[in-house]
């Protein structure tokens, strides 16, 4: 046990960073669970727990596109939307055939991720030849297209199979006993509420590890090389198109996971929830948390999910205060004075100091 503990020092920097990040998430999780069990957590906060997880996943996954690949995307909510609908659709048609909730929900997550990832590949092929502002505008458009198509989409199923329509329920021509699952603007309702805080935290950790491991691998280096200098990246033989699409589609697939979590957390999922304001909200998390800083994205997502709810008592001033908080956070993040201050008062140092003391104490014992 002791030797294991001492080895923390020997691990390389990125592994240590990951252990600290995942450890912090687990500690936060344990505290929340303790509070829930002791009856100390307000209903307001309890209702936000899963949302913190899916927004955290959204922020970390968007950071892959924006911070690591260096491409501005304003349509990330579109991929969440695809994941949410695909996952909910699957759960609803399987609700009577698959009794095992764990297997069904796991499959829903995988299918939601796969569908969002597939759209990521397709849209990536189309848009990733564009740069900067153009890319931002086109991804924004794609996000809106996805939202609007799902808003008028009707899907039902009966013994003959699955039926689609863009008009209304009647034109699905369902048999007697057929079921309408996607009802246009009303979306999908009655999805089993399988998403729990525990599953959310697990998915957040998995998402984080997938991205952080990708970043610290050969492919991650290629992705960052493209971000830093695409001409030089080509000159050393890095396939620009391949790695752009890889990063974009992994980012999309993980947004799909967040979507599945979302649609299994509330009674009804409607596509209007996934408009550009949601995409921009997620982008705000990424920018505030720091481009390329995965841990920062999660912290920003969690804080900014909780904050507006606690500002409700301010009524009309709520969004004004929220905006002011954003500006203050931005200054805190980027002003040189504060950057220095954080360096001198960092949590990491404090944590390391505590670790050192523990290790010392163990040695002496």
């Amino acid at each position, binding site marked *: 046990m002791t030797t294991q503990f001492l080895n923390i020092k020997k691990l390389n920097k990125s592994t240590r960073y990951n252990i600290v990040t995942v450890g912090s998430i687990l500690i936060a999780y344990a505290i929340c669970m303790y509070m829930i069990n002791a009856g100390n957590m307000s209903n307001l906060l309890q209702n936000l727990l899963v949302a913190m997880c899916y927004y955290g996943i959204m922020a970390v996954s968007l950071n892959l596109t924006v911070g690591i690949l260096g491409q501005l995307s304003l349509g990330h909510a579109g991929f969440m939307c695809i994941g949410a609908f695909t996952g909910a659709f699957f759960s609803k048609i399987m609700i009577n055939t698959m009794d095992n909730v764990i297997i069904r929900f796991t499959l829903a997550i995988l299918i939601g991720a796969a569908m969002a990832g597939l759209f990521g590949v397709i849209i990536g092929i189309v848009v990733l030849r564009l740069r900067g502002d153009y890319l931002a505008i086109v991804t924004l458009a794609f996000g809106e297209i996805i939202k609007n198509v799902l808003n008028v989409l009707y899907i039902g199923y009966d013994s003959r199979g699955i039926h689609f329509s863009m008009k209304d329920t009647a034109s699905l021509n369902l048999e007697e006993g057929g079921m309408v699952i996607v009802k246009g603007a009303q979306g999908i309702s009655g999805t089993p509420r399988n998403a729990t805080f525990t599953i959310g935290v697990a998915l957040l950790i998995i998402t984080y590890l*997938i991205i952080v*491991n*990708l970043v*610290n*691998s*050969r*492919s*991650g*280096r*290629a992705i*960052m*090389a493209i*971000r*830093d*200098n695409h*001409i*030089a*990246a*080509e*000159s*050393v*033989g*890095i*396939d*620009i198109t391949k790695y752009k699409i*890889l990063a974009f589609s992994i980012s999309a697939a993980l947004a799909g996971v967040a979507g599945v979590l979302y649609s299994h957390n509330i009674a009804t999922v409607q596509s209007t929830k996934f408009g550009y304001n949601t995409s921009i909200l997620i982008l705000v998390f990424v920018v505030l948390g720091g481009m*390329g800083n995965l841990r920062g994205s999660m912290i920003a997502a969690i804080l900014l999910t909780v904050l507006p709810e606690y500002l409700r008592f301010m009524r009309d001033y709520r969004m004004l205060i929220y905006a002011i908080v954003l500006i203050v956070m931005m200054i805190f993040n980027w002003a040189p004075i504060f950057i220095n201050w954080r360096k001198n008062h960092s949590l990491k140092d404090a944590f390391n100091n505590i670790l050192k003391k523990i290790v010392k104490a163990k040695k002496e014992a």
Partner: protein
Amino acid sequence: MEMLSVKNIGISFGGLHAVDSFSITINKGELYGLIGPNGAGKTTVFNLLTGVYKPDIGQIFLDGENITGRSTIEINKAGIARTFQNIRLFKNMSVLDNVKCGLHNDYKYSSFSGIFRLPSYFKTEKIMNERAYEILEVFGLEKEAKILSSNLPYGKQRKLEIARALATNPKLLLLDEPAAGMNPSETEELMDTISLVRKQYDVTILLIEHDMKLVSGICEKIFVLNFGIELANGLPQDVLNDPEVIKAYLGE
């Protein structure tokens, strides 16, 4: 044996013949200097050789293989690596990672192995690290391996670019003004390093240099370009005494 054989390549930018009917043959293991006044078309020659621009006319052969019209990526895979006149490092990555990017195509494992940390990840990364440190040592950069490349002093950034290019294991190395902005002692040290690299890695080199006295020291042959046209080509002492060449440089 011919490593690079270029036959009458040319390119125009809106009427300006940036490079006009350029031909050169470089034998394996040679160190060739490409000199000429500012705007002569030297960098454009590199851009043509590496597929950044496609030549309007002419052909390029590398080690007997016709690589005319191929993409930059394909040309690098075929064996040409380069540095840039205006440094293009991966600024937000460490010195070590810059070199490991150069190893990208020679040491592979899938993204899947990387994400899920399968054995091939650990095995390949270990070899990549060893290889990258080996190259960094040649340039005296091993102590700075972990720092951000943009935090290196200017002269070392130039060296790192060469290290990164060398990591792709090229047959032909193109260096675009590697000594630009360096002081005389740094320049001398760099030229020594280049000679060393050439022997140790058995690589053929074409080097652009603005200052022609400097290249005469280490290059076997010199090619002089002026207004996109060949002005002289041959042994350093012959070329440097050529009245045409002297005129071109004085007229600058």
